[in-house]
């Protein structure tokens, strides 16, 4: 059953995209040749790796990949820095508050993702709430330019993916036996040392899961960089979108997608391994 699922929802679409990536651009519907109309044999012989070669020739593509990796990496790190204390505070909160706190973490999902990102435009723009507030406080005298910079993209990604970081870390911390910390203190650890030697290692699996859950979607993110990022924000998701819809170059866009997938396979496999190990350890 899981294999049928995998076949229908992943392998078949992937095969289609892969095939397109090996085709040539054409002014037709669909906008590439050869297609199955030309006969199976003609179609197969007409395929080549031209588009992949093209990706290496124009430095826009590998720069976009690298920049995406960088942005995804740093925003994952920032999300962890924001998310861990929140998860920790939730796990330490009185029992009767925890369902409410969990609810509050999940609450943003009740609104459309697009609207929430648009809201940040209103907050971060030159005349936005944030600048208005800082001007009123007298901290700054001229509005800060945050919107359409990488900073805005980081803020957007951290905001959007924070629940994906908090939930696995919270569940790891929640499961932890409180007497372990007491035992560490009893054996001579200060509070901080006990946190570092016991709490952090025991929430490791939660941290890893959270990081992958943020990193993987952030890498291919399109909406956040196109709404909050500027012309200088280079992310592969944006490039992919432009190839498809602005250039209508489906074969190149497909090649970009295939490479992105290959890059993502590494963290996905690592994530799966982590989940598996965790499941085994709990047995």
């Amino acid at each position, binding site marked *: 059953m899981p294999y049928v699922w995998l076949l229908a929802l992943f392998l078949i679409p992937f095969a289609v995209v892969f095939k397109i990536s090996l085709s040539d651009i054409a002014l037709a519907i669909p906008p590439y040749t050869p297609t199955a109309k030309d006969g199976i044999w003609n179609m197969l012989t007409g395929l080549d790796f031209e588009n992949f070669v093209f990706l290496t020739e124009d430095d826009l593509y590998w720069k976009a990949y690298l920049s995406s990796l960088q942005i995804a990496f740093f925003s994952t790190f920032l999300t962890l820095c924001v998310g861990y204390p929140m998860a920790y505070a939730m796990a330490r909160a009185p029992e009767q508050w925890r369902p409410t706190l969990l609810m509050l973490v999940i609450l943003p999902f009740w609104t459309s993702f697009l609207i929430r990102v648009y809201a940040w435009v209103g907050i971060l723009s030159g005349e936005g709430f944030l600048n208005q507030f800082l001007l009123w406080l007298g901290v700054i005298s001229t509005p800060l330019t945050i919107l359409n910079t990488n900073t805005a993209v980081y803020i957007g990604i951290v905001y959007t993916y924070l629940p994906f970081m908090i939930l696995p870390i919270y569940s790891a911390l929640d499961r932890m036996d409180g007497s372990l910390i007491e035992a560490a203190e009893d054996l*001579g650890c200060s509070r901080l040392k006990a946190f570092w030697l016991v709490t952090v290692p025991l929430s490791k699996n939660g941290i890893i899961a959270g990081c992958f859950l943020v990193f993987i979607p952030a890498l291919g993110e399109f909406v956040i960089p196109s709404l909050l990022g500027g012309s200088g924000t280079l992310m592969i998701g944006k490039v992919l979108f432009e190839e498809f819809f602005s250039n209508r170059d489906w074969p190149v866009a497909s090649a970009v997608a295939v490479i992105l997938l290959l890059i993502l396979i590494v963290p996905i496999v690592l994530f799966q391994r982590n989940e598996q190990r965790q499941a085994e350890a709990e047995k």
Partner: protein
Amino acid sequence: MAETAFAPWDDPEQKPLIRFRNVTKRFGDFTAIDDLTLDIFEREFFALLGPSGCGKTTMMRMLAGFENPTSGAIELAGQDIAGVPPNKRAVNMMFQSYALFPHLSIWDNIAFGLRRESSDKAAIANRVEEMLKLTRLEKFARRKPHQISGGQRQRVALARSLAKAPKLLLLDEPLGALDAKLRETTQFELMDIQEKTGTTFVIVTHDQEEAMTVASRVAVMDEGRVMQVATPQRIYEAPNSTYVADFIGDVTLIEGTARARAQAPEAPDTAAQQPSAPRGPSPNALGIWLHDKVLAPVIGARADIQRQLPPPDQSDTKLSALSKDIPEGGIDIVWTDDQPPLIALDADAALDGTQVTLALRPEKVGITKTRPEGAVNALKGTVIDIAYLGNLSTYHVELAGGVMIKAQTANTRRVARREITWEDEVWVSWSGTAGVVLST
């Protein structure tokens, strides 16, 4: 054991290792520990025994440093330890859940505390090996806690808490998670290790058998107060309250009024209780008037001499038989109208007239088909229940007044040949010193 050399609590010269002085601990409105004063001496194996919620765990957590007393002082080796954080105390604790670090191997778990205070790798390794040997865990050093059995985990927890050679080791229900058989062997192991290391152990338990087995002294607690602190023998043989008597072991409690016994043996006082004048109806004025006016013509004049009730002949003969060869002194306990009083020879005659409870251990109560010769206390009853424990049987005997009394005998014969069975009329008997008289 109390008679052996080790009894520092009887020696006024000895300085206690731990002193609780008027310690009170409150959590909001709830008083967990109520004005508690207690001394624990070096090398003791001290048990805190009580039902859950009696404050014993709070006491232990105050010793470990996880809680601070609301008022009063706790001294460790003469120094007030209030406010000293747990990581700065020469006290280690073995947690009820063992609290082994799941991400570390057994070896690293034991080394955990040592690494915090020294960086001498060779010394740490030596100490860990020593602990592994002491707890017979050498083979499992490289395993993770989830890869070993419950009993082994218990030993790892013990090794880890002993590794730093604390002045005081606290054990919070250390054997609670083990099955009965393993618990028994582990109890002896614990005593053995305590003797070998010479560490002062304080154990918290709700299992009275466990406390009696391992401890040099037991403190029985209830609702934040210590009811009695004494050696296991004294706790069992001479409880100071009905609470302690009832909590420790099996017991029958009979309430009654104490009456000092005369010095010379004489007819029991119950005989005197029977009024010398025969008892009968004693009509009031209206009754007399009615009789004289209405009934006298019919049934004759009212008899001033009241009609006599038949004397309780059986108990009378029993009492006179009893009183012949019973030593003098002690008290009688009058507990019901239709039974002879119970005799406690070693009780204080000053209790005369007060309400008392006689605590009787079932193993000190004999059970026979016929009335035993020369028994100081003997009562007749019916066997209601028999609890067969293998080596012992406990008989629940209902006396004439509805009081249940427990008697225990060793099963020296096979059950099939047991001569007493359900619904049998039996005699329960005990000596004049078998029971403990507690004032209520």
